[in-house]
């Protein structure tokens, strides 16, 4: 059962990593407009980028 001593921290760490990634997505407002974002991937978003480069 000593293997548990290694496996439990590993699984907790991986799960925690997932949770941290989720919280990061949430904080960077990636869940605010699910409807719009599903289409946004299909657009050529030249507008915003060209603006910022100018």
């Amino acid at each position: 059962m000593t293997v548990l001593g290694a496996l439990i921290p590993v699984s907790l760490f991986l799960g925690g990593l997932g949770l941290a990634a989720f919280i990061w997505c949430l904080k960077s407002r990636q869940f605010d407009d699910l409807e719009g974002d599903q289409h946004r991937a299909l657009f050529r978003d030249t507008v915003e980028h060209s603006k910022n480069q100018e």
Partner: protein
Amino acid sequence: MAFDRHTHLDRVDLLVPGMTCAGCMSKVERCLSSCAGVAAARANLSAHTVSAEIDPERTDPEALVTALSSAGYDARPYDPSLHGMSAGEKIGRGLLLRIGVAGFAAMNVMILSISVWSGAEGSTRDLLHWISGLIALPAVVYAGQPFFQSAFKALTARRLNMDVPISLAVILAAANSVAETLRSGPQAYFDAAVMLLFFLLIGRYLEHRTRASARSAAAELMAMTGRTALRVLPDGAREIVAINALQTGMTVEIAPGERIPADGTLISGQTEIDRSLITGESLPELAAVGAEVHAGMLNLTGAVQLRVTATSDDTLLAEIARMVDAAERGRGRLDRLADRAARVYVPVVHLLAATAFVGWYAAQGDAHAALQIAVAVLIVTCPCALALAVPTVHTIASARLFKQGIFLKDGSELERLANVDMVVFDKTGTLTSAEPDLVEAPEAHDPAWPAAAALAAASRHPLSRTIAREAKHLGITPAPVTKLVEHPGFGVEGELEGQTVRLGRTGWASDTDGPGVALSFADKIAHFHFGETLRHNAQETCDELAERGLDLAILSGDQAGAVRSVANATGIETAKAAMLPADKLAWLEARRSEGRRVLMVGDGLNDSPALAAAHCSISPASASDVAKTAAGFVFTSDGLGAVADAHAVARLARRRMLQSFGIAAVYNAIAIPMAMAGLITPLIAACAMSGSSILVILNALRLRGRS
């Protein structure tokens, strides 16, 4: 167009109600980004809003509104913090965060629990229980907040809601598991507690999302107010003032095409007023000095001055808004299906758990074992499936309606729509097209058309606009008419090749009186006749609804003759004409007291109180903003078929919901006796709970239909 880092940028938020598809979204963003002084623009399709970063020295919100309106989108600036939209977003994000935490805890505790179930014993089992507890307890405390708070609120108000048994089951499961771990017992329910929360939070989040759209509709209504008026000072000077700064006795000037800012009496000028906002009357009325006009009506043809007699809160518009508000609150008392279920379910379940405890204690005299069984009963009966049944069905049904161009304000509207037994239509703009149609006009190559097109383009009168639209449709180039003058109540006059041309009332433009509109040019007379045409699919929809056993009726503010002909065309027998907003409301109240559940379909501001008071209501997208806000559903399609479609989907959704309740009942019928007999172990509880929840979700998914 450079924006260096030091330029101070302002954030502007705009509501764009017409932005409903992905194409619109990119069009709106491109339109704003190409405006001078705009650094970036990002639209939110779910909330119908766009926020832009602007350089306040080079542009302002008004310029953005103008740019959007020339691209074909109505836009209004709004303050997100004012309309509770940012608060709603925050709640949504908070719920998602809790789902994340509960999901993380559920997965990790489940891994540990599987080790326990597969045979861990002694100190290993205790260690696994301890670790589970360390993960689960903080997760329960954090992720359970929404349920604990709502349950506490209900209990302090001496009511029972679904969150009471949920909170009790979760807290008892966690507390009992801690006790079991302390005494090295085998039965810990940490996994059940967090998994319950995970499933329930998903349901809660879905519910929140269907409600978010209702909030943005309310914000759209509030954005309507707060415009400005042109005040005429005693010395004749003009001054722009905010509408809420107007006081009785002030004089304001209203240009053609503007909405009237306050109730008042005309003191100079003559014009035609579009009263449809209040009366639903399709054609404008002539208003001369001394005429009473109300805020919100549209000034069509002439500049007038108005002495203000009632402002903001005292206007007829505000009174209608109050009627809408009161009617809506009255309707809020109606029960939602899930709440009704909860009121029966909760006491029964708690009674059963108590019985189990007393029974086992009496039989064996072991308080601890008896408590274990009572807790098991509470855990397996936790209304997880019941709490998921409603939000999943609502979410999927509203997504399906969305695809058909029907927007749903609140999930509970679906429940109401499913059990209506009577459909009441408004006439103008609902059963018929909003604008009059040409039924008789000169041939396309007739020389009358170029002159008519030029004259019609100069007026805002609905009949003129219909002629202008038809001319454009026929590809006619307007004649070079000069000296255009509009005579309110009569028509438009101009000069073409040295001769006077007139388009207007038959008796004015020609020598003989008659119906319709006449055009006199070069000693010739051409006639245009108008009529109301039924909305696309109106007749089929009425037939279909009648076939489903619903009674149909028409309530209109228009005159009896016009109402009669539409009633005949659609085969509706009950038709009431010349109804004021309060009459419609009273008529609906009378039906309600007879026990009828009425679906109101209407579009005008004059329908709004009725829309809000009816059991359920639908508005076309062309409706006034107030009507759309008062209605439970809004459809964007041209035809009336959306009403029948929405009704069909609502009935289907209701059937799915009842099926889901059935699944939950069957599950309980098996699980409760087992739990009371002391046969439930943590493993069985975990399987049963997630199994029933997944069944309910799958059942709701069947509603999606074939696409």
